[in-house]
């Protein structure tokens, strides 16, 4: 469950998000779209507390973000899987360790970590790259590793920021199928994207953002 109540976010004199109200049910899958600079990434960042709202309340799975202590942030983040727009892979760790990190942070036993990591790499079709380092991967491969890391720990909420920007249409559809599987198992999912192919015909809600305001909503 994700709820935004009158949320605004400013940078200096520049309003990035203006009076946002959103309500996403537990187990729902929704899309977020809008032109470059509309505020999509910022909106996602507010959910995992990489940014703090200047006004309004945000509730994530019953947690009130406004009244949360700093020490609780890691716990919140461990319940959210994020596919970052710029991947954020760790250079010095190989692909396996990059993905496994999400489990190790959560204190999962090493044996289970191995099994779950292999499975996640298989889901994005990159198990053969387990021993490679991020630098030697293509853009699309890096993006899929970022996706594998986001889903490996089976988080309650999955946030994906432009998860197919570096993927060919075929691979992109594989990924969206993967997300729908996860969603059918109960994961709440929010995907920010420019790629209309992703939500076309899904029947899911598509929130439209422009210049920091929600300007409409449609079904994909």
């Amino acid at each position, binding site marked *: 469950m994700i709820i935004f109540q009158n949320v605004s976010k400013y940078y200096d004199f520049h309003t990035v998000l203006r009076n946002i109200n959103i309500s996403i049910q537990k187990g729902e899958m929704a899309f977020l779209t809008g032109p470059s600079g509309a505020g999509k990434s910022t909106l996602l960042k507010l959910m995992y507390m990489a940014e703090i709202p200047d006004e309004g309340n945000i509730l994530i799975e019953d947690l009130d973000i406004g009244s949360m202590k700093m020490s609780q942030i*890691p716990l919140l983040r461990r319940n959210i899987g994020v596919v970052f727009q710029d991947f954020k892979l760790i250079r010095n760790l190989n692909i396996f360790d990059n993905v496994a990190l999400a489990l190790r942070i959560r204190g999962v036993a090493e044996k289970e970590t191995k099994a779950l990591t292999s499975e996640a790499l298989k889901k994005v079709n990159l198990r053969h790259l387990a021993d490679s380092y991020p630098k030697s991967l293509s853009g699309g491969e890096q993006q899929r590793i970022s996706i594998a890391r986001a889903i490996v720990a089976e988080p309650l909420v999955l946030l994906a920021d432009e998860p197919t920007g570096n993927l060919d249409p075929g691979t992109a559809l594989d990924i969206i199928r993967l997300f729908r599987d996860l969603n059918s198992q109960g994961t709440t999912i929010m995907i920010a994207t420019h790629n209309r192919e992703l939500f076309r015909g899904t029947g899911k809600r598509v929130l439209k953002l422009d210049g920091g305001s929600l300007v409409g909503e449609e079904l994909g």
Partner: protein
Amino acid sequence: MSYSFKVAFKSLYREKWINLLSIFTVGSSLLIITLTVFFLYNLELITGHLPERFSMMIYLKDNLAQEEVQNVLSTLRKRPDVAKLKYISKDEALKELKETLHDTNYILEGLDDNPLAASFEMRLKKDFVNAASAAKIAGEIKKMPGIDSVYYGEKIAEAINLLKRSVENISLIIFLTIALGVVFVTYSTVKILFYRRKEEIEILKLLGATGGFIRAPFLIEGGAIGLMGGVLGTIGAFAFYIAVTYRLSIVIPILKTLVFPPGLLIALPLTGIILGIIGSAIAIGRLRL
């Protein structure tokens, strides 16, 4: 935890050249500190026997009555610049001379009469211990009745004493600066480790890692570098000890102070670990999540 160790040791290996450099830096810093302490300790032992205070000898005229001596004493006692007065009788003076002459004191055996004068050994208050006021005071005292001569040739002693103190001060300054230097070196060494992984730390935070999880590999890596630096420092100190004792051999009594303190074998590596961990902790700083 085992994961933190794995990451730390992987990183130690991956950047082995920089780490070797860091280990060497920490090791030599610890060695310098050890040598400085060692040096200061021995300097204290050597110079500890040098005269501590400035004194002035006031020789009395021969055959002064008890009363007259008493007069001189009370006049001197009233002076604001006098810290301490000690009367040395003719007999005591002769005894002292005999001790000074040592093996050759038989040359005094032919003397019928004690040719030496009674004297006061006078210590000045700290504020007056300098050439100008000593000269002035000596001049004033010499004019008093019953005084034969005043001797304040201990300028040399004063010089040695002041020099000793200034050497100690220089050493202390060097020591403090080096100690500060070690902290800086450890700090900047770990800061390198840190910059190498700044991005990694940011990502770890976003993935929900706790402060402890993020810090652990750094603290382990810093501690390991410190440990190895400490071991290197110990080896250096031991090598230095061997070299010094070999050269000085068993002749010199002061060598008793040159026993290699076995505590160093534990103290240096331990100091290394602690410095490494502290340096790491400072370099990481407060992790804002």
